């Protein structure tokens, strides 16, 4: 259609002129390349600093978790003939759980008893204690697949000798 073609050509001429005018209205500036570079560098530095700060914060947080675990220790204790978790035990495990959520480490939970009672029953009681720890951790978000519960019964005491001061040290689960 002739009319369109003429209109189209006119439009494109108009647009081209406008575009050239638009470009032409950018007044040539004095050389700002140095300022641009400075600004870019500053932006980059700010980004780097932000990233470094984030990493430092993360490291600090991680160290805090590790310190908390170190402070809590790797052993939790139990009352005679029991496999229930005390409040102190749960706080210790919470510290471990917080750290474990930041990594993929696997665990070995070793359950122990004091010397009283029969050996195979104590093997079962030691396992019950290790499993109690494992179940608590699982409920709190550390998958059961990461941990193995092994019982040593009364076979590996840390305190030799009789009496409650020795026995209480042996009724434990070690987190490894």
């Amino acid at each position, binding site marked *: 259609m002739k009319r369109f073609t003429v209109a189209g050509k006119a439009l494109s001429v108009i647009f081209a002129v406008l575009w050239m005018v638009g470009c032409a209205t950018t007044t040539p500036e004095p050389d700002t390349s140095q300022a641009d570079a400075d600004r870019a560098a500053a932006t980059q530095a700010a980004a780097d600093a932000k990233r470094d700060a984030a990493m430092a914060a993360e490291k600090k947080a991680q160290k805090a978790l590790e310190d908390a675990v170190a402070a809590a220790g790797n052993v939790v204790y139990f009352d005679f*003939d029991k496999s229930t978790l005390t409040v102190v035990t749960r706080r210790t495990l919470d510290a471990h759980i917080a750290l474990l959520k930041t990594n993929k480490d696997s665990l070995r939970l070793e359950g122990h008893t004091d*010397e*009283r*009672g*029969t*050996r*195979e*029953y104590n*093997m*079962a*009681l030691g*396992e*019950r204690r290790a499993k109690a720890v494992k179940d608590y951790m699982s409920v709190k978000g550390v998958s059961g697949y990461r941990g*193995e*519960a*092994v*019982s*040593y*019964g009364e*076979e*590996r*005491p*840390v*305190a*030799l*000798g*009789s009496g409650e001061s020795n026995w209480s040290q042996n009724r434990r689960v070690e987190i490894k």
Partner: protein
Amino acid sequence: MKRCLVLIILLLASQARAELVIEITQGRDNPTSIAVVPFAWSGWGSAPEDVADVIQADLQRSGQFAPVAREDMLGLPTREAEVYYRDWRTTNVEYLLIGRVSGGSTMTVEYELFDVYKQERVLQGEATGPAEDLRMLAHRASDKVYQQLTGIRGAFATRILYVAVTQRVNALSTFRLMLADADGGRAETIYESNQPILSPNWAPDGKTIAYVSFETTRPAIYWHSLETGARAQLTNFKGLNGAPAFSPDGNSMAMVLSKDGNPDIYIMDLGTRELKRITRHYAIDTEPAWMPDGRSLIFTSDRGGRPQIYQVDILSGQTERLTYHGPWNARASIAADGRTMVMVQQADGQFHIAIQDLVQDRVQIVTSTTLDESPSVAPNGSMLLYATKYGERGILAAVSVDGGVKFRLPSREGDVREPAWSPYLDNP
């Protein structure tokens, strides 16, 4: 009731450091006086063993005999013709045992037992075997003498397993599975590890054993031939693998596995290695032992809250509780008579060995030691061995089933525990 005073008897030293020393702490009133005269020796050099001393110690350890000291013997007969009854009657000796040892690589022990008051021989016999088993030949003589005078088959010619531990806290402990004669003699190490060994158990043929070892870093059950030294790992499940117990016919083994969620009793067919699950309960079920007829197991369970002994029929699975005396009972086993149940009972924080007659439902505590565990009954049902503490050391101790005779067996070094008394043995 008067008690015999403490007598200390030290055994001749054997090579192993973990060999046992016997200390008799209680015997019967009015033990029978018997003179065991040194046996004649007609082989090369000096006699390799003092056979009369072995027999005398056996009889004394039973608590029922008071052997005459050698320095009090008025004569040293070795043949019937040399026996002068008058010599023995004057010192109120009731029985006289004399004998002769002969041979080289094969030895023969001949013995003759005389009733001093009746002035007649009441027993005559001999035992023959390899020279290295001379002590066992002496024990066979003791068995026959004991049976003649008490009517009960002797169990002196038997062996024991036990675990010897050199315990260190911040370094590796050493665990040794030991095999010795029932009097502690000829102790040898069967297996050694720096990981725990527990629950040794005899097969009924007296030639193979089973035990739990942590050598793979987890507890597993091992089968071990005493004749060849061959070992086989029978289980490798996650969780508990424990408390192996050969069946009376030797073809199966009861055990505890927690692979299905919690500790339960299983029976493994030793030929096919197939497992049959016997208990299904969320509580701890452990420490199975067989009834002599092989049709049911007794075991420890805390399904009622605290450990007690239950019996389960293997075919039907029907389970009933056996112990109603005492708040805590565990680790039960049944003597060959099928009615005498031996176990550990706890009350007021003290752990004693208790014996329950399943027919009459009577329970008796037979020990005054307070940290007792692991009772094991002799095949003749007359005595039992168990583990306990003496001072700070783990020792073995023995007590007669009626509680009247007691002795201790501490080791020369380290702690000993977990005794297992062999069945009657066919060969020395």
